[in-house]
């Protein structure tokens, strides 16, 4: 029994064992994007260590431009904002919160959605219900969900994450189902059934394991959108609350000073752009390597 199982597993994964990282590194733009993204993530994780100042600490040096510009101060590399806070420190902490919001929302929403999608493909009797549910949820756009939840719960990070997570469920369910459907047609599923595996073992080891990489690629593309939406909600004053630093909120705080000190709004906006751009480029490349069927 165990020998058969072992054999099946080794033959099984048609998708998961592709040398994706080698193909990714062969594409210089994607490799660079991945590198930049990982550097940003590392900087965000290490924000408390790397940040030269307390992100909430104000000083009398207000709206100073970056250090290399005229009137710039050497200790404030990226300048200061309207309250004299160090932009570099806020940027590091802000990226941390922005990334965290996106990560939690995509992990929770994508996890729940994928599980539903896989269940739909595995149990055809559940399928219509799950897909109808996904259709209904798709008719409730993320921004509306965000506005409604914030209206009920008050502005904050929690309602934004919940809204983004819920909004991620239907898309993930659909994608996971279409990926799982093609895996379900493979012979090794039949073989697994034939050797008498339980549904649970078949589901987790044969189906889910072979879908994970493709689902992850989709999640990476979704991650960028979620970050943009979360930042937009924070920009509107509906997300993160001061004194916390969040990139969208930082851009919003700099918006009134666009004329005098454009860097206050532009630096955090550019940071969001770079994060989302690198995620999208790497995600696109990963998708092309791992699963060309997902091309939309």
């Amino acid at each position, binding site marked *: 029994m165990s020998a058969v199982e072992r054999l099946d597993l080794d033959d099984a994964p048609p998708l998961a064992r592709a040398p994706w990282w080698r193909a990714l590194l062969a594409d210089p733009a994607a490799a660079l994007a991945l590198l930049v993204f990982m550097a940003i993530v590392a900087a965000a994780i290490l924000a408390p260590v790397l940040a030269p100042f307390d992100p909430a600490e104000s000083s009398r040096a207000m709206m100073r431009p970056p250090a290399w510009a005229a009137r710039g101060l050497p200790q404030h590399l990226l300048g200061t904002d309207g309250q004299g806070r160090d932009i570099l420190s806020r940027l590091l902490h802000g990226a941390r919160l922005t990334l965290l919001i996106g990560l939690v929302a995509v992990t929770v929403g994508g996890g729940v959605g994928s599980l539903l999608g896989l269940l739909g493909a595995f149990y055809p009797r559940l399928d219509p219900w799950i897909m*109808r549910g996904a*259709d*209904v949820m*798709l*008719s*409730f*756009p*993320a*921004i*509306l969900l965000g*506005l*409604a939840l*914030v*209206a*009920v719960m008050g*502005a904050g990070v929690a309602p934004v994450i919940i809204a983004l997570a819920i909004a991620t469920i239907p898309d993930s369910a659909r994608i996971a189902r279409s990926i799982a459907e093609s895996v379900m047609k493979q012979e090794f599923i039949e073989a697994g059934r034939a050797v008498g595996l339980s549904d649970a073992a078949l589901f987790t080891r044969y189906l889910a394991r072979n879908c994970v990489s493709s689902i992850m690629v989709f999640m990476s593309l979704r991650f*960028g*959108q979620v970050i*943009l*939406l979360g*930042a*937009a909600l924070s*920009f*509107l*004053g*509906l997300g993160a609350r001061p004194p916390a630093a969040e990139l*969208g909120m930082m*851009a*919003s705080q700099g*918006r009134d000073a*666009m*004329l005098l000190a*454009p860097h206050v*709004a*532009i630096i955090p*906006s*550019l940071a*969001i*752009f770079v994060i*989302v*751009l690198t995620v*999208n*480029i790497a995600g*696109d490349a990963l998708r092309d390597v791992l699963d060309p069927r997902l*091309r*939309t």
Partner: protein
Amino acid sequence: MIHALTNRLLLSIPVLIGALVFGFLLIKMAPGDPAQVMAGPSATPDIVAEIRREMGLDKPVLTQLGLYAARLAQGDWGRSLISNKTVLSELGAAFGPTVELMFASMVWSVPLGVGLGTLAAVKRGSWIDRAIMAVSVAGVSLPIFFIALVLMQFLGVTLRLLPFMGRGGPLWSVDGLRHIAIPALSLGLIFIGPVARMTRSSVLEVLRLDHVRTARAKGLSETRVILRHALRNALIPVVTLIGLQAGYLLGGAVVTETIFSYPGIGRLAVGAILSSDFPLAQGAILLLALGFIGINMLVDMLYAVLDPRSHKA
């Protein structure tokens, strides 16, 4: 077509119920007496008492929800806590400007996106394709508020070409056009990327089909093959996908309206939420949900008209 519409109507019911529950919660959450909230701050105690009875505040929650829905259906959406105007009149004033903004953004960005996507598909693998796709990826990665702030700064403040605050008047007036130009440019820009990407993959798929090969074999010119035989068919899924992106556009519209102080539903909703104007927030959210259902229905209908294959279903 009837089938598609019935389907959409059935799907809309849970969405409507969801929006109603949110609206109901908002009214219930308002500080103080919900009857007072619905009546507005200047109402007399008699009116408040009557509304309390009407609202059935002594009845079970589900009954209250039903009564709430019935009141909405009768056109009683409550009064704004801040302006004391009826919610419906506030929403009515903001509805037109939002529709105008959406229209002014799509009227140029959708054709441009479709054109770029088609060009990229036809020149697949060339530097033109790669350049268009690179610009699209950059486009979908840009935060809308960044685009809006930069355009406002550049076109409005530095070059002083156009006004960038508020709404000058209806879309068909010169002042209206001048005021809507920068907001519509910002909002349209975030839409080009998705449309170009969708069009490209859709055209690529159609170009592989038999009828395109037949058209080429007949000796039709390449332009004719692409415009008449490929693009026409490729546009069908693009229409659906544009419908699916309506939520994305709506999100952009909320931010755009807020930045440019443009008096639409999005700015109204954000303002109401931030100032705890619960009746108005409730109304704006309900109207946005209804609008979204409407857009989806329109897309379903358009799809049915465009795709003869769906007539059989």
